[in-house]
Every structure is written in C-alpha cells, then in structure tokens.
C-alpha cells in the first residue's frame, strides 16, 4: 500500500525529473520540492486561513468570556469552544493538517532518495522492481548522486568530499537546516494574543523543531537535508507572498515594565 501509493510514485517522479534535468539528482530534489509545495499549496492556504480565523476568535470578547466563565470546568469549556468553532465554521485541526501531511511526505522522500540512490545491493534490487516501464532505467542507473560537496545518498559527514576542519567533518547542511527551520518557525508564528494557551506550545515547537530537523538532516541522507532547506526557503517565500510574514518576531522583545 505504502509502496504503491507513496514510495513508487515519488521515486518515479524523482527519476523522471532527473532524466529531464541534466541528470543531476540535486536539481531533481529541488524541482521535486517545488512540485510538492505547489501540490500542497491549497493545504497551506487552508492552514493560513484557519490560523487567522483562530487568532481572531481567540482575541474576541466572547472567547475571553467563556475562558473566564468555565475556567474550573474543563469539560464544559471544551463544549463551549466546540460550539463557537461550529458557529464560526472553524476546524480546530485545520492549521495542524498541513504539518501532519508533511511527515508522510518527509518519510516517503527519505525512502525515495535512499532507494533511488541505491547505494547498496538490496536497495538496487528493490529499485529495479519499483521503476515504471516508461522510464529508461537501464540507461539512467546508477544515478549521479554527486551534488556540490555531497553524495546525496549518504549522510553529509559520510560524503567523501565533506568539509574537514581540524580532523572533523563539518555538517554544513545540518547547520543551514537548523537555521532555516528556526527562521521559518519564527517568521510564520503569529503574535500571541493575551491568554493564548497555544502560544507556549508554539514557543516550544519553535525551539525543538529546528533541533529535531537538524538531527534528521545530520543522521540521514544529505538529499533529505537539501529537501528541508529548499522547503523552508520556499515556505517563507510562500508566506511572504501571501502577506503573512511576521518580521517583528525576529526583533528582540522589550519587556514591558510593570506598573508600580
């Protein structure tokens, strides 16, 4: 099921792009990422819409009132919140869905990259069975896995041309993944409303997500790190075009002096 509907189509699209664009797998990943962003655009737009509505709702007087009124009765509070969501036509999971969808894509892409790179015999055997007949596999295999200083099928620090400083391989892509993920999270997070329960959660995610993505980029195939970087940059660009970038989040916040 997973192979038929996710892995095989992804591998074949990647190899098909590779065949058309100069037999460069790095370029194929970049184009593939753009395609993924375009395909998931309706979800991103939906997420943004839901996020805005949710923010407006949480800033509303009605919302603040029920928070106060039912602060000691969580069950009743949840019921009232659901009622308001229904009234305003808001799906509370609407802003999470695109994020959830990213994970199968990420796992599928990781598997596609390692499968397409086929840097070991069993992977190559599996690839031979997954390629659709219209792709000239025998002419294309092995795919050229070199891109910049990386071997895209291997973790960056395992690439033969990894940057070595003082005897240690420097994970440049991992550093860029951490930085771009952090910037993306900061720039896309809307300013919190007073009493916003999700704000603390967002703060935590903004802190841990770059570390998580960095760890994945460090330990898995460097082709995946390339996907993360391009995806992050495109994400920021997409939000900027939609007028939803919060540049102010990057500025240091002044602490409001407590009234004496």
């Amino acid at each position, binding site marked *: 099921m997973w192979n038929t509907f996710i892995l095989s189509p992804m591998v074949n699209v990647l190899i098909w792009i590779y065949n058309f664009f100069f037999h460069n797998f790095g370029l194929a990943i970049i184009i593939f990422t753009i395609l993924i962003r375009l395909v998931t655009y309706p979800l991103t737009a939906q997420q943004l819409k839901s996020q805005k509505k949710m923010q407006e709702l949480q800033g509303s007087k009605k919302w603040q009132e029920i928070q106060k009124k039912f602060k000691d009765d969580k069950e009743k509070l949840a019921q009232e919140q659901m009622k308001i969501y229904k009234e305003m036509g808001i799906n509370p999971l609407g802003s999470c869905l695109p994020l959830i969808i990213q994970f199968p894509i990420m796992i599928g892409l990781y598997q596609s990259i390692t499968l397409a790179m086929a840097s070991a015999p069993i992977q190559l055997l599996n690839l031979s069975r997954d390629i659709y007949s219209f792709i000239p596999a*025998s002419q294309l295999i092995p795919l050229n896995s070199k891109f910049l200083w990386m071997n895209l099928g*291997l*973790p960056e620090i395992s690439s033969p041309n990894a940057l070595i400083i003082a005897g240690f391989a420097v994970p440049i892509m991992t550093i860029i993944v951490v930085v771009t993920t952090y910037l993306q999270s900061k720039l896309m997070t809307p300013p919190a409303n007073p009493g916003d329960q999700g704000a603390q959660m967002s703060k935590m995610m903004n802190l841990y997500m770059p570390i998580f993505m960095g760890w994945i980029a460090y330990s898995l195939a460097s082709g995946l790190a390339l996907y993360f970087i391009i995806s992050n940059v495109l994400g920021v660009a997409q939000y900027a075009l939609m007028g939803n970038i919060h540049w102010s989040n990057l500025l240091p916040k002044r602490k409001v002096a407590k009234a004496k």
Partner: protein
Amino acid sequence: MKSKNILVVSTIILLSILLSACSSTLYSSTGWHGLTASTDTVYLAAGAQIYAVDLNTGSEKWRYPAKANSKIAFYANPVLTSDGQLVVPSYDHKLYSLNPATGSENWIFAGSTNRLIGSPLVTEKMIYQPSSDEHLYAVDLTGKQIWVQQTGGPLWAKPATDPNCGCVYIASMDHMVYSFDAATGKQLWKSADLGGALVSTPAVSTNGVLFVGTFGKEMIALDTTNGTIRWRFTTQNWVWSGPVLENNVLYFGDLSGYLYALNASDGTALWRIQPQNSIVDTPVITGDKMYFTTEADTLFIVSTAGDIVSSKVIGGIIYSSPVVVGETVLVAPTGFNALLVALTLDGNQKWTYTPAK
C-alpha cells in the same frame, strides 16, 4: 501547561527515533551474506561480524570482531590468499586482512572513500579491490597500495583476470568494462557504453573472450585484446548474476528468474528455464550438475542439459551464491534464523549454523 510541554518533547523524541531507525548508517538489510570456504572451515561475512565455522560439524571456531560493531558491515565474499590470509571488504570503506586460523587482525587497508561492496580479486602477489568510490585499488599482500585507477562509476563487481595478458578486467556501473595492466595499473582499453550498469564478475575464456551481463538486459561478449563487442544476447530482464563458463557454454540467470545456457562462441541460446524467482547469484557447476539459488528460499540442482534434478527449500531469502566444497553444498540465507545451511550434494541437510548471542 507542563504536561503539554512534556507531550511536545516526547512526540519529537519519538519521531526522531522512528526516523533515525531508517538511518542509512545502519547497514542491516542493505546487502546479502558473503561466503567462502577452505577444506575444513567456512567463512561467512554476515553483516556486523565474520564467522569461521567448522565445515564438518557446523560449530563456530571464531568471530570477528568479537563484539558486533554497527559501524562495520561485511557483506562481500571473503577471499583466501595463497600466503594464508583471509581478506574481507567492509561497508566502512576498509579492507580487512585476518588470520584464517584465529581471526586475529593482520592489517587494514583504509584507502577507499566509500563502501567496499564487491569482493577483491586475489593473485599470487596482489589484491585488486573494487570500491563504490569508482576506484580500483591494487594493494600488495601486506596491505600497501601499489596503484589506484579511476573508472566512471561505482565498482561492485569482483574483477577478473587473464594470465595470458597480465591484466585485470573490471566491470563498472558506468556501463563499461576496463582493462588495466595488473602490475602498473596502466589502462589498456575501455569498452564502449554497453547500455546498462554492470555489477557481475565477468567470465573470461582462454581464447580471448570476456563475457559480462548488463542491466541493459543483455549478455555481451567482448574481445579481451581491445574491448570490442563480439556478440550480444538479449535477456528477459537485468542480468545481475555473473556468468559461469564451462565447456564453451555460458550459464547465468536474470531478474525475471530465467536461467540461460548460451553457446559461448556465438551467443546463441541452447536452453532456458524459469524455475522460480529472480536469480541474483552466480551458478556453481560440479560435474554435470549446477547449483544455484533463487531470491525466494530455494536451492536448485539443475543438470547442465537444463533439467531440474531437485530443489530444496532452505528458508529466508537467498541472494548469495552457494559454495560447494567436496561433498558439501553451503547456502547462506538472508533474513532467516540460521545464517548457514550445509547440505549433501543431493540437497539433504547436514547441519545449520545459528550464532549464539
């Protein structure tokens, strides 16, 4: 709020573990077991360790390294040298030389910058090790590099040699076959693009013809003096199995599961059978019988005339070529509880070997 933070951190840690589980730095299930044998010992390269097993009893003699190291992975067939070394390539880019009697380390060659997937060709004085870094390394029997030559693609196939020309042939995944001077490494010729990647060891005849299977669904015969094509034979699917040449007949399988017998002189088909699943291994011929495995779980015994004599279900998935020593057939399945199964020449089980934890 505190419980929500714990939930976020736990979710992220769980996802990290899940994704890291697929890490390419773990070598399990990326290759199949390598096998070789002397008159009394079987040497099995089975991932994290190499095992020396008594040929008669199936009892373990030694293992290397004593404690499994996930950074090392042995999958290529080990090779015994004439001066008493066991040479084993590893996915950690290194070539290990061990004492076959004790498993102690002689030397390690660390010149490669990528995985060593193919077995080395060993001659009286030299070891020719192919590497996924596209280079063929020639090292002497002390592990000192003598020469290195680059091709245009990863090298997974074991090189072949021809004593008449003092040269080494290597089939590359860049779709070409190369011939190098065995002593100096000077390139003598390279073939034209053969239309598909080459991962199998070529067979070389005594009358100057080299035979190699390709992912372009062909078996191709080349002139060993200049690499020009003598004939081509179209197969049903990719040819991974190295051809074996016996009495001017070539025997090999393809990924559709066909086993072919061709006239080596002109490439005409003598017969073909399709016993079961994909054939990845190189058949072994003893007398008028041929032993080979299929990707499913079965060892087949076929006559050189193309008749299935018998078959034996082993278990697991079998990619590795069987090894025949005296009256024993050795099979190394992958994904099975026993790493090694010993059978009589008729296919009756003698013993199995499962390493103690």
